[in-house]
């Protein structure tokens, strides 16, 4: 699909059908699921960053009325297998409860189950744990040293991943380059922190030998991992995917919670409900995001063209790892951003420390990497006294160069970065914006314009798995949709995943409707449990528009083909000669037609009229493999990663009262190209929400630890989420460069805004403070830091 096609339903305004149940308070979140006989769990956490668990005395707790059980790590570890880790580090074992030692403050040491949550908390207080404090390490560089205290002595060091990549003639290009610069930036530990914490209800039925699971989950292969850990066949686990998830943005992987709840349920023979409270979530829910330091060198020429980049990225993943170290691998698929950098050396390091473990966060490492790259482009411009927009324009891959192969082996599908920038610059009236900045400066403020141009890789061909762990040769990344037309002619789609507000029901119906030429609002969409599910990989990696949209469309096509074949068979004609419209088929030569009700009747009831060997009824499905997927990395670490690349270009005007140091955003404009948009309201919501997340990461949010490994930001009083006051009005400038890989030309947009906003806001603040010789090189950039830096620069106390 090269040209921008016109669609009947795709790209049109359509209400998101899911909204109805949310605005009426009739959604079903995991907190609303309480099977008869449910018992409630609470967890006891380690107060120390590193300690041997000497003794756990639960006798007083167990004696309390209404208390069912107290479980600690050894009992759990004897009955379950360790949770999966994404890199090759089998001796870094992780169980839901600490086994013998606690490795971070907040680690779950014991679980209490009681009649009510309040009673479980009462009982928890009566559990006596004797600890012997041990040495700990908190800093990533310190943890990286061979002499460092290892968080997992069995593993031998804190290094989970230490992989250098060299793509192209990096050293030679650096040697020959007229200009070089080097810088360091730090992405502070934050996360997308949903308003709903993680929760799970697990219910073991010994009579049916079934473990029913309801969870606030966003996790590929969730049922697999539960089954593995609990040593059960996967078809004894039934995950109910019609649970509404109150936001996830990557983090709700919930394996440890679910394995724990599943174990408890089996032990007690009753449903067990574990809902994190906010304190449990922040400290021990293991949902922190990247904490990454980048050391970058750029080799460039006098016109500002960047020819080579060296990037060292070290991430402090915390005391355990699931998928989190893989967040160093995903950016490989867009390591040069939107630029024609010819040679790249990338050194990815992930280390353990005695901090809360990380989990996947929106973008899976791309937002920090974009921040690092965009900082460099601004520096190149500064060094050469060139305009920042012009430097980017010169470095952009050009529209006529797509598909474009980047040094690390991924081919970008399509794009027109120059057009998006031109449109945005025109909309914002760049010269007027700069003049406004200068006027603010003349009025005594500091003021700056920030820009960031970034890619949003989408589609989740997650080949960073085999790239970073050669023992994992997974290349299947799939999504499914089933369509059934019932005997009375109503259409029902089945999708096979949970959702957290992305509007997947509406998305699937729209795609199917487009294929079937039927109003999507007439279709019902239901969710299967994991037992009835076709293969699905969950909404991760900004994939569902591509994958679910694609699967639903293909299934729709199959259904349409079947209907046409039935009609063709009635008239003894080749199907290709018929015209399908509005659910019916017409013979253009004669005008005779069979409409939807006629065809349904034949399919369901008139076997004697069916084409030979056609299955009765109208049920079709499609399992879609990710476009461009199926490959394994080359020995030098080159691989095709995600299939589709959306583009965003942010422009921000910021002013700062120099005495106070608080940045105020005057204007925020983003140019956004995610190919064909399936539902405009959904995409807009993603971009606006992503920018709010990015603003939080840039200015407000941090999981900060003290010198003893205690989390300082344990509640919402100290971990500051942006409110409606902090998020500015955002203008979106839209552009469409379709993808050749997808059914409508759509690309993903689930991470949009977040991938570029931190870079753009940092760029704006740095533009504002540059006249004072100040530079901020770490996020978040707090008001106090800005105020103090300004005072220092001016020689004030």
């Amino acid at each position: 699909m090269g040209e921008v096609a016109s669609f009947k339903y795709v790209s049109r305004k359509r209400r998101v059908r899911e909204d109805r149940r949310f605005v009426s308070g009739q959604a079903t979140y995991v907190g609303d699921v309480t099977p008869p006989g449910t018992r409630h769990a609470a967890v006891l956490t380690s107060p120390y960053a590193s300690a041997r668990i000497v003794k756990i005395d639960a006798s007083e707790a167990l004696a309390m009325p209404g208390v069912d059980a107290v479980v600690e790590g050894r009992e759990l570890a004897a009955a379950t297998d360790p949770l999966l880790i994404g890199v090759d580090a089998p001796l870094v074992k992780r169980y839901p409860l600490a086994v013998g030692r606690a490795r971070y403050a907040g680690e779950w040491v014991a679980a209490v189950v009681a009649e009510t949550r309040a009673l479980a908390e009462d009982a928890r207080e009566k559990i006596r744990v004797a600890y012997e404090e041990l040495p700990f390490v908190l800093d990533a560089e310190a943890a990286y040293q061979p002499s460092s205290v290892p968080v997992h002595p069995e593993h031998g060091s804190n290094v989970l991943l230490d992989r250098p990549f060299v793509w192209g003639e990096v050293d030679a290009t650096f040697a020959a380059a007229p200009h070089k610069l080097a810088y360091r930036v730090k992405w502070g530990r934050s996360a997308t922190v949903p308003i709903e914490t993680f929760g799970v209800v697990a219910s073991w039925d010994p009579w049916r030998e079934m473990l029913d699971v309801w969870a606030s989950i966003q996790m590929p292969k969730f049922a697999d991992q539960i089954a593995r850990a609990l040593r059960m066949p996967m078809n004894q686990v039934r995950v109910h995917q019609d649970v509404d998830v109150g936001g996830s943005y990557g983090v709700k992987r919930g394996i440890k919670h679910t394995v724990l709840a599943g174990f408890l349920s089996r032990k007690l023979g009753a449903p067990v409900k574990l809902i994190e409270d906010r304190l449990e979530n922040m400290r021990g829910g293991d949902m922190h995001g990247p904490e990454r330091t980048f050391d970058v060198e750029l080799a460039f020429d006098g016109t500002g063209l960047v020819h080579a980049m060296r990037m060292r990225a070290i991430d402090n993943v915390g005391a355990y790892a699931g998928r989190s170290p893989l967040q160093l691998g995903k950016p490989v698929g867009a390591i040069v951003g939107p630029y024609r950098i010819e040679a790249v050396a990338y050194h990815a390091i992930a280390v353990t420390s005695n901090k809360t473990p990380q989990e996947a966060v929106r973008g899976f490492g791309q937002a920090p990497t974009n921040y690092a790259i965009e900082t460099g482009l601004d520096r190149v411009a500064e060094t050469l006294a060139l305009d920042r927009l012009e430097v980017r324009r010169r470095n952009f891959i050009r529209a006529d160069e797509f598909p474009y192969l980047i040094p690390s082996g991924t081919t970008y599908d399509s794009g027109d970065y120059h057009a998006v920038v031109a449109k945005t610059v025109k909309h914002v009236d760049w010269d007027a914006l700069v003049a406004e900045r200068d006027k603010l400066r003349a009025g005594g403020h500091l003021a700056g314009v920030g820009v960031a141009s970034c890619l949003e890789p989408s589609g989740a061909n997650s080949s960073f798995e085999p790239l970073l762990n050669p023992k994992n040769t997974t290349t299947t990344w799939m999504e499914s949709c089933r369509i059934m037309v019932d005997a009375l002619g109503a259409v029902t789609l089945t999708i096979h995943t949970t959702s957290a507000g992305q509007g997947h029901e509406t998305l699937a119906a729209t795609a199917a409707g487009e294929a079937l030429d039927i109003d999507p609002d007439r279709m019902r969409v239901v969710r299967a449990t994991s037992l009835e599910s076709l293969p699905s990989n969950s909404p991760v990696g900004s994939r569902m528009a591509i994958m679910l949209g694609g699967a639903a469309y293909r299934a729709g096509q199959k259904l349409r083909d079947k209907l046409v074949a039935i009609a063709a068979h009635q008239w003894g004609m080749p199907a290709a000669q018929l015209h399908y419209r509005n659910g019916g088929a017409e013979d253009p030569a004669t005008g005779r037609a069979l409409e939807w009700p006629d065809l349904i009747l034949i399919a369901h009831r008139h076997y004697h009229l069916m084409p030979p060997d056609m299955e009765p009824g109208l049920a079709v499905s499609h399992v879609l493999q990710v476009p461009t997927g199926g490959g394994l990395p080359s020995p030098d670490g080159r691989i095709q990663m995600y299939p589709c690349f959306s583009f965003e270009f942010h422009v921000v005007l910021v002013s700062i009262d120099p005495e106070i140091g608080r940045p105020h955003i005057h204007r925020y404009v983003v140019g956004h190209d995610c190919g064909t948009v399936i539902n405009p309201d959904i995409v807009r919501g993603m971009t606006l929400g992503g920018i709010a997340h990015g603003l939080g990461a840039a200015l407000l949010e941090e999981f900060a630890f003290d010198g003893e490994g205690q989390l300082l930001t344990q509640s919402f009083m100290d971990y500051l989420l942006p409110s409606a006051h902090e998020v500015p009005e955002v203008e979106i400038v839209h552009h469409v460069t379709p993808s050749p890989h997808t059914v409508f030309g759509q690309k993903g947009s689930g991470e949009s805004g977040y991938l570029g906003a931190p870079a753009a806001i940092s760029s704006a603040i740095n533009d504002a403070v540059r006249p004072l010789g100040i530079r901020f090189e770490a996020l978040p950039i707090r008001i106090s830091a800005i105020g103090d830096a300004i005072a220092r620069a001016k020689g004030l106390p």
Partner: protein
Amino acid sequence: MRVELQVNGRRAEVDVEPRCTLLDCLRDTLGLEGTHAGCEHGVCGACTILVDGEPARSCLMLAVQADGHELTTIEGLSLGPGELSVLQDAFCETHGLQCGYCTPGMILAAHALLARTPQPTRADIVEAISGNLCRCTGYGQIVEAIALAAERLRSANIKTGET
């Protein structure tokens, strides 16, 4: 301890521990699960209900404190089974939500605003929802929903309070 509550226009007698928050009482005892727990320490606003028509955080009230007040939850806003109010419908029209978790609290805060201020400015709307955190939408489409509802209520000649 017995408490008599007035919820969504109906009397409800409950027997709860004094330590039970109004939030937990609404959800667990009265089965009104549209009010949500986000933080249980009074910051996120997901637990927002109306107390005598004004927004209050139900996680910061004990059930035993709530007698003698008119309590309104999200379930009390729908006009009937399957029927959305103008305000609820406006949220659907602008897609002023995604995951829906903050939405009941957001809508109740907006309802209280529109009852008091039928022609709110953008600043009024932002101030009214500033105590309700949303992680999905970035607030843009929420503000638009409330503005749309205000406009529709005005032009439909509906008295505020009857939304």
